[in-house]
């Protein structure tokens, strides 16, 4: 299978195998007019299998959201056909409207307009807590 190089765009590499479609949806890539390639189960020396997303346009990506969903992803920014920047993601300190608080006693359960914000309290275990009620959410 041959997928050509991109001139200006973003390559999301080292996506955990099977997560590319979830990321495609969350980043709203279905709404783009440019070329987007979803590569599933590519061979990887480091990971065995991995997914890759190639986006043929320089779009704004919420790296915090991406880092929360799959902190092992490498983000390559391509400009004029060459790699201009390479970013390694990590679990973000805060995520908003990515995790939803399920505590029925939390203020977010009755005030619909409030953002669901979680903060990272333990990087080693990937544990997040709701900033309002401290309910725990663990990174999968």
């Amino acid at each position, binding site marked *: 299978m041959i997928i050509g190089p991109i001139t200006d765009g973003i390559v999301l590499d080292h996506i955990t195998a099977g997560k590319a479609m979830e990321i495609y949806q969350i980043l709203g890539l279905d709404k783009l007019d440019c070329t987007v390639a979803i590569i599933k189960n590519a061979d990887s020396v480091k990971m065995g299998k991995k997914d890759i997303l190639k986006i043929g346009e320089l779009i704004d990506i919420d790296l915090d959201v991406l880092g929360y969903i799959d902190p092992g992803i490498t983000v390559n920014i391509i400009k004029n056909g060459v790699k201009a920047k390479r970013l390694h993601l990590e679990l973000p300190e805060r995520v908003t409207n990515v995790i939803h608080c399920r505590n029925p006693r939390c*203020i977010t359960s009755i005030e619909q307009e409030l953002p669901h914000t979680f903060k990272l309290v333990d990087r080693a275990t990937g544990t997040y807590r709701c900033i309002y009620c*401290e309910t725990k959410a663990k990174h999968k």
Partner: protein
Amino acid sequence: MKHLIDILDLSVEEIDGLIETANAVAAHPEQYADACRGKVLATLFFEPSTRTRLSFESAMIHLGGEVLGFSEASSSSAAKGESVSDTVRTVSCYADIIAMRHPKEGAPMVAAMKSGVPIINAGDGGHNHPTQTLTDLLTIQREKGRLGNLTIGMCGDLKFGRTVHSLIHAMSRYEGVRFVCISPQELMLPEYLRHDLQRSGVNFVETQDLEAVMPELDILYMTRVQRERFFNEADYIRLKDSYILNLAKLKNAKADLSILHPLPRVNEISTEVDDDPRACYFRQVLCGRYIRMALILKMLGVQKA
């Protein structure tokens, strides 16, 4: 601007300062009688709590200030569907400081994000109740003369009891404190609090047997099993009488044990205990007014008159 949402918003030094001010207020109340003249406290109680609301109002009145507010959500615009943020933004225009109780956890934090004046969390669901904790700390300090090197029994509803959670967090910061957590299986400490204690190396044990641990205790902190925290009435009925303290159970207790209770009590402390000198819970109520006076003074940045 500084708000008080969680007891851990205050450093140990700030708590020591509040206790010092509260003791000064207790010793010379006349020196503080006009300290807050011209200032207004709003008590926004979206959930009924006569005791805490009256304590705040009494504190402000004893400082020479004025109070306004509501005592249940049905008599506020929350009944019309107004958000906490909008209510607080509005009340900020009427008052210099707000004490707020809400049944939902995190509501005072939402208020603090939008308020133009300092917010004091007067209890948010089963989550935090920092001024009760300050009350408890002042009581312990006045009864024992110290806040460190104590064995503290926490008895009753340790799962939903916010006073318990806040007090454990606050006392964990003092040297030599050991917790004995006494509860039925269903009302044990929540997982996150147990994790916090383990992670910070705090000495604690969990048991269901109050009488067995009684001789070890310097402080016995009794709590009520609260009907309003249960979604299931049958669970409440089954657990509400788990621990009832009476003189027989105190037989092997230390002579200088201090029995605390955040009140209101239902039946978890028999009235026969009330006249025992070890019963501190009514003196604790008075400490509640003193420490709230100290807190209002601090948050409004005013000194004694």
